[in-house]
């Protein structure tokens, strides 16, 4: 008996509902001779929920664990019947062989290419798979029945089912809130483990201080540049270049509009302008990427060419030699800056509004104008918060992916010229991992090392930003 997992889940849900109603009927039955439900320890619905939970939880746990781990268990069982010399191979090659075995089991390859010695392994895999497929539904049904029965038996007038149900509810809440921890843990473990494997192949300091990035792995061993080079410096330079272009647009514009909106603008103007600016925050990054690649970059190129022509006519040498790449850092940086404007402005808005009114009143009382008050009183008072906002914006800019993937290009140039193409950490992560790849090459693992790098940088920036903001808040509250 085999069935797809969705049907199984449906069966579990139906069985749970059935158990719920059975539980309620049972509770009402018990209550009747006693003279009504108020003689029960708790309301019938709680008995019903308890029976339902008894049916649901064990069965669903079984399904989840089974579908997560049956592959791993079957693999290890298949490994035990592999030929002796294969078993001692390193884990990567063993994985490849297991892959071939499963291909053979699916009928994609035959034994002539694979080798006759793998026949027991393939047969083992086939039989284990069919056992797994057949036994899971049966086991789930048995667990469902057993669970409901146990739940059903515990329904009695003296047993307060509410306690058990509320307890399970509490545990459920706790488990859900732990998911955030597991997610962080998952991120850290996955990037750290793969990075460690990467640093076995490429020395850590070559990675961190190398000035050359070309992750191609040689096809032949004797090919020039056979190892590929993994120096991260050009990527950092590119990331910083684009981020600083973005910040040099977003910070002044965002800050000034926050100041204008919170100090000068009338209520009505604020009510109209603020939501419009916030639209910028809601536009998906892929849209910005498209905009950067197809509107801004060609425009920059056109104006660059025009400037060059003009420079050549008027004998201005540096203009005449201007070279504008079609995928320039400038285009990506400008658009990224526009994207971050609402981020900077709403964060600075919060800090500016948090400055106590008494400071403003004091300043006005001494005869200073509004702009003097802002520049000499509010701005210094809000400075830590603004610094925090800028740091958060920087971490956004560094981690931003789609705009740079679409508009910044792939060439790892070590340059500070914004008109040249540069590449960034995020672009390289995406290019190294998109498409089919095996999990053992330095090229793939390099993406995880870059991910670790990115994770650490953004984490540090965020922690500093939050510290700064928190410290500032304590001064006034």
């Amino acid at each position: 008996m085999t069935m797809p997992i969705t049907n199984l889940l449906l069966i579990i849900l139906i069985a749970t509902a059935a158990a719920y109603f059975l539980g309620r009927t049972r509770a009402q039955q018990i209550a009747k001779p006693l003279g009504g439900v108020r003689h029960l320890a708790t309301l019938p619905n709680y008995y019903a929920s308890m029976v339902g939970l008894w049916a649901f939880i064990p069965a669903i746990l079984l399904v989840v664990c089974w579908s997560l781990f049956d592959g791993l268990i079957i693999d290890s069982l298949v490994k035990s019947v592999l030929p002796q010399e294969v078993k001692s191979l390193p884990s990567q090659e063993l994985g490849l062989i297991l892959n071939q075995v499963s291909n053979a089991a699916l009928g994609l390859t035959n034994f002539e290419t694979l080798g006759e010695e793998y026949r027991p392994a393939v047969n083992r895999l086939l039989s284990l798979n069919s056992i797994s497929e057949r036994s899971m539904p049966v086991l789930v049904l048995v667990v469902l029945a057993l669970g409901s029965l146990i739940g059903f038996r515990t329904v009695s007038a003296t047993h307060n089912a509410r306690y058990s149900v509320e307890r399970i509810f509490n545990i459920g809440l706790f488990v859900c809130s732990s998911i955030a921890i597991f997610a962080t843990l998952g991120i850290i473990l996955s990037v750290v483990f793969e990075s460690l494997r990467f640093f076995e192949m490429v020395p850590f300091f070559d990675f961190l201080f190398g000035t050359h990035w070309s992750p191609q792995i040689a096809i032949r061993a004797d090919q020039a540049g056979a190892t590929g080079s993994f120096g991260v410096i050009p990527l950092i330079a590119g990331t910083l270049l684009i981020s600083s272009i973005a910040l040099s647009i977003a910070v002044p514009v965002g800050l000034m509009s926050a100041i204008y909106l919170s100090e000068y603008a009338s209520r009505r103007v604020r009510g109209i302008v603020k939501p419009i600016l916030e639209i910028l925050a809601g536009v998906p990054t892929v849209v910005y990427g498209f905009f950067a690649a197809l509107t801004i970059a060609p425009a920059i190129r056109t104006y660059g060419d025009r400037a060059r022509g003009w420079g050549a006519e008027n004998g201005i040498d540096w203009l005449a030699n201007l070279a504008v790449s079609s995928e320039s850092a400038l285009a990506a940086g400008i658009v990224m800056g526009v994207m971050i404007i609402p981020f900077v402005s709403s964060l600075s808005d919060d800090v500016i509004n948090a400055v106590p009114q008494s400071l403003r009143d004091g300043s006005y009382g001494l005869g200073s104008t509004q702009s003097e008050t802002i520049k000499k009183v509010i701005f210094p008072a809000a400075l830590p918060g603004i610094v925090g906002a800028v740091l958060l914006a920087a971490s956004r800019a560094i981690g931003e992916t789609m705009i740079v993937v679409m508009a910044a290009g792939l060439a790892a140039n070590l340059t500070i010229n914004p008109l040249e193409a540069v590449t960034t950490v995020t672009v390289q992560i995406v290019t190294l991992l998109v498409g089919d790849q095996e999990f053992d090459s330095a090229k793939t693992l390099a993406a995880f090392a870059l991910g670790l790098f990115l994770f650490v940088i953004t984490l540090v920036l965020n922690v500093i930003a939050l510290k700064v903001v928190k410290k500032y808040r304590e001064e006034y509250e």
Partner: protein
Amino acid sequence: MKNMSDQIESGLAERRALHLQKRRSAEARFKWYGRIAVSFGMVCVLFLFTDIISKGAGAFTQTYINMDITFDEQVLGLNRFSTLEEIKAVSFGSFFKKQLRAKYPQATSRKQKSQLYAIFSSDMPLILRNMVIAKPALMGTTSSVSLIADDDTDVYYKHGYGADSNIGRLSQFQKSIVNALASEGRVEKRFNAMFFTSSDSREPELAGIKGALVGSLLTLMVTLLLSFPIAVATAIYLEEFAPSNKFTDFIEVNINNLAAVPSVIFGLLGLAVFINFFGLPRSVPLVGGFVLTLMTLPTIIISSRASIKAVPPSIREAAMGMGASKVQTVLHHVLPLAMPGMLTGTIIGMAQALGETAPLLMIGMVAFIVDVPAGVGDSATVLPVQIFLWSDSPERAFVEKTSAAIMVLLAFLIFMNSAAVWLRKKLERRW
């Protein structure tokens, strides 16, 4: 003496006046900086939208060419009683080409002939065959058929026709044919329904967003089903039940952390954990939904906590006073009152998830997929990734398609966000 002090006095007054003027103009300048900053932001919004709308509006129409096609029984070797197998065995490609050559004998060279065929979509033979399959009675008749124009013809007719510009890649020969057809009134622009009913294709004139839309929908469904209950449970736990200890702090730190992690890292997580470790398939909405769940959790948790916090303690105290347990208080009173705020946060989180691209690229939802996915376990792509893929295509017609897909995506996002705003205004209670 008196004269001198007067002089000093007037000099001082002058300087004071000058100083005051300086301060006033500084004030005015500063105010203008603010105005410039605000208008820069507004201009950016305006420019972004007009740019995309002006680029994409054309994709909602498609050029068709009405032509009389003679379904000749001799040429095709079929008649109105032919069976499905017989029809399928016939090459409609050569039939269609023959028809075109008969209509345009001026195409003599090989090059001109192939240019002639290229005026029409390369899928036309297939469409003709399907017409015959659907209605075998067509055989032996001559009927007017709306032929789908090739993307180059489409671009030319929409943007270059009439003006003597060099838009599009049509040759002079092709242009003369299209011009002649147009002057006969045989070329027309119609609403491009195919854009919404077909999936990705290598041919721009046949490409649509249905597959990507369904993929997005499935992915969002998985995300919603997972992230809403988990986030609400987390918010309830942290606000109502959690003891104030180190572990609770640790959970909070982790949630704030997740909110700050760049989205591309979630892609790495999905690749390493879900695909590599647990062996889930690549490019399926299920895994996409898992990854997006982890991404949207912080957003929903934070807004849910805020709305639980906004429920006044008097409600809780009243419920407890009536003998309700803690769980009953939360489930019967706090949760319903906080629900509008939670839903608002959820919609905003879903809007984020709908626009997310980078992590989905890494788990392989970037493949060229023609079929509409039927379930969460089928290979699929999503709307933002489709936009990314199309924007990479060299054909000019794909620029139009990309912008149109962006317009659809933005329409969804605007709808979702205004629903969130509406919900907040309508249902949220002020205490």
